[in-house]
């Protein structure tokens, strides 16, 4: 009666942009400092650490953890509503639709491992995140690939999410504007992926 489904869906849609999309962008920007070498990166980390711990914890719980968990869990439910069929109907948008769901499932696993490993065990256990720590981690080819794929999946999921958000919120109505937005976002996806690849590879170069 109160259209609960509607509001949950719309909330799910917003969560994907704020805070999740923004947080992803923050990650990319901060990590891109790694291209400048260990000092630049550690300085960037240090800037974030200036935020008082108590405030940071509140932000992390209410601004990140809860929206993330909501988006992930409800998203998983949405994913289960679909029978992906790009092999049968190989249109670009249908591929994007399927990729959105496949990346969702991968990201679900990726984020849990990422957060549990780095935020809870490592940082929570008292070891600060640093260039050296990550460098050591990416020395392992498995971790390197896992993180690279995870980042690109997240970037795609975010960019394609912006495209569908424009449809879902009725912002882009006609096929021309929808296609335009889709292409622009795929271009953004490509650029962000290149930046990510660049800073990931930079660990191997330094």
């Amino acid at each position: 009666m109160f259209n609960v489904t509607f509001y949950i869906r719309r909330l799910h849609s917003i969560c994907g942009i704020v805070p999740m999309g923004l947080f992803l962008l923050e990650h990319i920007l901060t990590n891109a400092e790694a291209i400048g070498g260990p000092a630049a990166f550690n300085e960037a980390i240090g800037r974030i650490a200036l935020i008082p711990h108590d405030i940071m914890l509140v932000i992390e719980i209410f601004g990140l953890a809860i929206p993330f968990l909501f988006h992930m869990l409800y998203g998983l439910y949405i994913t289960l509503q679909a029978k992906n069929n790009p092999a049968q109907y190989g249109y670009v948008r249908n591929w994007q639709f399927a990729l959105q769901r496949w990346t969702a499932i991968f990201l679900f696993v990726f984020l849990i491992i990422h957060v549990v490993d780095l935020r809870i065990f490592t940082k929570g256990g008292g070891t600060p995140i640093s260039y050296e720590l990550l460098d050591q981690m990416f020395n392992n080819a498995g971790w390197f690939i896992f993180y690279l794929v995870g980042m690109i999946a997240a970037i795609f999921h975010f960019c394609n999410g912006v495209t569908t958000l424009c449809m879902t919120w009725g912002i882009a109505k006609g096929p021309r504007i929808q296609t335009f937005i889709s292409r622009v976002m795929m271009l953004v996806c490509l650029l962000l992926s290149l930046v990510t690849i660049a800073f990931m590879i930079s660990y191997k170069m330094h």
Partner: protein
Amino acid sequence: MADQKTVHFIIERQDTPDSKPYTEEFLVPYRPALNVVAALMEIQKKPVTKDGKKTTPVVWECNCLEKVCGACMMVINGKARQACATLVDQISQPIRLAPARTFPVIRDLQIDRSVMFESLKRIQGWVEVDGSWEVNTAPIQDPNVAATAYEISHCMTCGCCLEACPNVGPQSDFIGPAPTVQSYLFNLNPLGKFDKEKRLNALMEKGGITSCGNSQNCVEVCPKDIKLTTYLAQLNRDVNKQALKNIFNK
């Protein structure tokens, strides 16, 4: 006879709703402009498989053979289409026919699409007229709006869009693109728009427009070229406005 050109069909059959599907292959004599329904009619006349085994005629649904009744929708070479309007010359062989399994299968290629008609009840798919008796004249309409209504009103409830939509099926409660967009048709009408709020609220419920995942297969497969995604986006706009009204006007 020996060198007569034939068309090779591989048909997915199923005797009852619960029994296991199986395939049978048929060779149908070729003729120019042969369509899939006409080929199935040939199988009715000679229900013998490719290997010479006698079988029963294939069961399917068809009425008009002019792509206007919507009855003969099936999956042809992997895609949902109207069988009557599918000419064998335009597709690759062997031609594979299968029922649209988004819907419950009754027998062979025949499916049960009653859920679509039920959905039309849910979105209040009618104009609430007082009666069929004479009332004063009907309102004048903007011919451009009427033209849009005409386009949407071509929807023949064939179910192609539901079959192609990844979000419609036994795993989901989405009513599908066709019934959703039909609500826009009635919202456009000068009398029908009196119930716009009711329809939009119905669309905001579970299985309504929020279940659309923007795969946009619907607009690709619609045999009537209805701009489904455009109207879905418009409806999204409308339900968002309605949501604000629901919150702030009451």
